[in-house]
């Protein structure tokens, strides 16, 4: 209580200093929430691609390819030693015009030929309804982020690219790419995809063999990365073949750089806040020189004085951190709920980020308070008592 009273003895100054820390923590919470969300997306992708080899058109990167290829390539790929099973996949954008810039993955349509059943280890849990089967023509399952956008309910019909589909299942939120994906059977997806392509391109494609990627599963005990070269040799230069290591390299390094960048910006904001704590505490010590002399005269040792001023700086840091976290939480929640960033939620405020941000502001307050407090602790009591 006494510490709080001392901090707020100069209310405006204390509030401005706390506000400085608040801005830093707010920046850390908001940008950190973006980083956490992207990290989760990347981790989800890394997990998904960890046991497979992806074949796409040579002009695109595996896993991100939306250029059409022929599913006939599956037969050639499955001939490679060590490949246990291949599955045809078709991915395309749910809508042609992505209305907002999305930091995550845009809403997608995805379909497979169900040959991956029993091989695919990346399972999605259902919130309602059931999973799709190969016989579910005209039916879809929907990722959690698209429920409100499509008005999806199990048993109700939704419009996807001008065609109506019945929703048979809704997935639990995973905070990864499937949240913004509609799943349908391969023939349905092939029909829709063909319509998305320019006529000149579509005329030369066979609907029934239309795909955007081939997913290959390795035999037990075979490292999928070791298959990449053999599959590449088998299929030739027209195809891009990537294993788990390739995917990791492609997404994790830029992600790390992005993380460093946004955390650096937030940390700079916090350090500026920390400097304002040093400034405030230095002024406070100077103004309270006589008080320090009195405290020493009545028996306070250096440690007691140090502790008192460090505690005041810590309170400034802690309050700034808590307010910054609270404001950050409001901004993150409001933005996620408003959907201004598209169907996919942009922010993810994790417990580790929340605790870490407040802990960091507390430590920053303590560190910023150390020098002025040490100066206070070393004041000569007689000189301090004479101070007017």
């Amino acid at each position, binding site marked *: 209580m006494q510490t709080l009273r001392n901090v707020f003895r100069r209310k405006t100054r204390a509030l401005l200093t706390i506000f400085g820390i608040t801005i830093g923590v707010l920046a850390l919470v908001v940008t950190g929430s973006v980083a956490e969300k992207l990290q989760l997306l990347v981790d989800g992708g890394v997990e998904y691609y960890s046991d497979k080899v992806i074949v796409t058109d040579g002009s695109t990167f595996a896993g991100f390819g939306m250029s059409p290829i022929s599913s006939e390539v599956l037969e050639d790929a499955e001939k490679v030693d060590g490949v246990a099973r291949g599955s045809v996949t078709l991915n395309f954008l749910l809508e042609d015009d992505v209305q907002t810039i999305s930091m995550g993955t845009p809403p997608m349509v995805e379909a497979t030929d169900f040959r991956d059943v029993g091989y695919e280890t990346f399972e999605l849990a259902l919130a309602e309804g059931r999973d799709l089967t190969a016989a579910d023509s005209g039916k879809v399952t929907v990722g959690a982020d698209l429920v409100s956008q499509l008005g999806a309910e199990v048993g109700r019909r939704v419009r996807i690219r001008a065609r109506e589909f019945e929703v048979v299942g809704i997935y639990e939120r995973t905070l990864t790419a499937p949240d913004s994906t509609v799943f349908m059977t391969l023939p349905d997806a092939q029909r829709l995809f063909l319509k998305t392509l320019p006529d000149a391109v579509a005329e030369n494609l066979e609907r029934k063999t239309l795909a955007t990627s081939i997913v290959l599963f390795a035999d037990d005990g075979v490292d999928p990365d070791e298959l990449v070269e053999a599959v590449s040799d088998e299929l030739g230069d027209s195809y891009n073949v990537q294993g788990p290591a390739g995917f990791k390299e492609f997404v994790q390094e830029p992600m790390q750089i992005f993380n460093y960048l946004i955390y650096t910006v937030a940390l700079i904001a916090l350090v500026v806040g920390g400097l304002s704590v040093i400034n405030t505490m230095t002024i406070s010590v100077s103004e309270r020189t006589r008080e320090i002399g009195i405290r020493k005269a*009545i028996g306070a040792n250096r440690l007691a004085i140090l502790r008192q001023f460090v505690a005041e700086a810590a309170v400034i840091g802690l309050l700034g951190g808590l307010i910054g976290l609270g404001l950050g939480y409001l901004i993150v929640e409001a933005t996620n709920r408003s959907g201004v960033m598209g169907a996919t939620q942009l922010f993810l405020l994790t417990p580790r980020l929340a605790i870490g941000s407040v802990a960091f502001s507390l430590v920053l307050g303590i560190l910023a308070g150390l020098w002025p407090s040490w100066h206070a602790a070393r004041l000569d*009591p007689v000189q301090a008592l004479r101070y007017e």
Partner: protein
Amino acid sequence: MGLALQMEGVTRRYRLGADNYVDALRGVDLSVEAGDMVAIMGPSGSGKSTLMHIAGGLDTPDSGAVWLEGTRIDTLSDRRLTALRSRRIGFVFQGFNLLPALTALENTALAGQYGGMSRRQASRRATELLALLGLGERARHRPSELSGGEQQRVAIARALMNEPCLLMADEPTGNLDSATSAEIMTELERLNREHGMTLMLVTHDPGVAALCRRRVEMHDGSIVGDGGGGRVVSAEADA
């Protein structure tokens, strides 16, 4: 009774500029019997406050030696000197020197906490002391809500928190009107008489000094007179 305080050949010089010094104490010898009540008098700049600061362990001499209840204190480390000061010496200042943000109770209890009491123990003792000094009803008030006399009584209560062997008061009535001065002096005298508390009072006021059993006169950093009780030994005589 033994000696509460003993000073031998104490000197203290303050630097005022690059080549400018003032000798605040020039070889002071002083002994104070436990239970005595001593007035230190003298004009401004005579060294009274410096003497009190050194005797109370707030400052250290440039040379000479200081003993408090037989313990030499001028050679103690800062940590040990602070510990001793908090438990064995109480200070009362002319300007009261209460912390404005704290209540009378908190101001008083603070000394107990610095002296090693728990918050609860300190609060209990502070309440008792404030009641003893007639401030039971004013314990929750801040200094700005108290009269000068009340503030000085809070300062006395604070000085008594750790049951010191020596209470040092620097112009304790300097900021008070004559009626309140008389009340405070009555209080201090009672502490000395009833509790055997050793008192050293720095004062300009002959009326205050007259209430003390012994009067030490200072001039230019030296003791120039001693009005009885205890003893004053010059550096030459001691040698």
